[in-house]
């Protein structure tokens, strides 16, 4: 699964994109964030305030309770500030 990070989430994780093998029992966006937090201090810091982080599954906004099964690309980012 391809994971992408943007803005301060990217700065905190220290990477923009990676391919990861997500364990089969990680079923939702929230569970994926909880799993990512355990991957080291950078990720723990990046996902410390997981409730404010937004996610997108295959280019579509996704809630934290959204299922991630079958997703090719999941992105994590702060609330958007364009316009």
């Amino acid at each position, binding site marked *: 699964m391809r994971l*992408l990070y*943007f*803005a*301060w989430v990217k700065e905190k994780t220290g990477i923009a994109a990676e391919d990861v093998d997500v364990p089969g029992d990680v079923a939702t966006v929230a569970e994926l964030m909880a799993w990512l937090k355990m991957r080291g201090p950078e990720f723990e810091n990046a996902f410390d305030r997981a409730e404010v982080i937004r996610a*997108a599954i295959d*280019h*579509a*906004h996704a809630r934290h309770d959204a299922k991630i099964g079958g997703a090719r690309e999941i*992105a994590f*980012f*702060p*609330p*958007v*500030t*364009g*316009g």
Partner: protein
Amino acid sequence: MIKVQHEDFDIGAEIAALKADRTDIGSIVSFTGTVRDAADTITEMTLEHYPGMTETELERIEKEAHTRWPLQASLIVHRTGTLKPGDNIVLVVTASEHRDAAFDAARFLMDYLKTSAPFWKRETGPQGSKWVEAKASDEAARTRWSPRKDAAE
């Protein structure tokens, strides 16, 4: 039409292109967002975005506007990369037979763009640089437009 680009845009030229060879349009509304430095605290602003999703999201928002109002044409241009105070950031143009649809759709497009298009602003000034935080007022502005009953959120 959607354009995501670093280059500046020419509002007059964009409107001229939108109405070229058309005589059915009666109203054209445009909104331009620019880099604001009201208190001399910003020397530059950098816009990061999510290539791929940005275009998908802008097209979705534009399509939604066309389902809600009888628009004859529309355009969203959003710049990315590093900009200076006073620079253009975003352009929304809507065209319709009568003004109400164009006015309302332009506001709708901006309200939705602000809260769902994947752009992030980083401001740099004498004190360093920081990510711009999302404003609750932008989220409130979006809620003025009730979701359509058949809309997938």
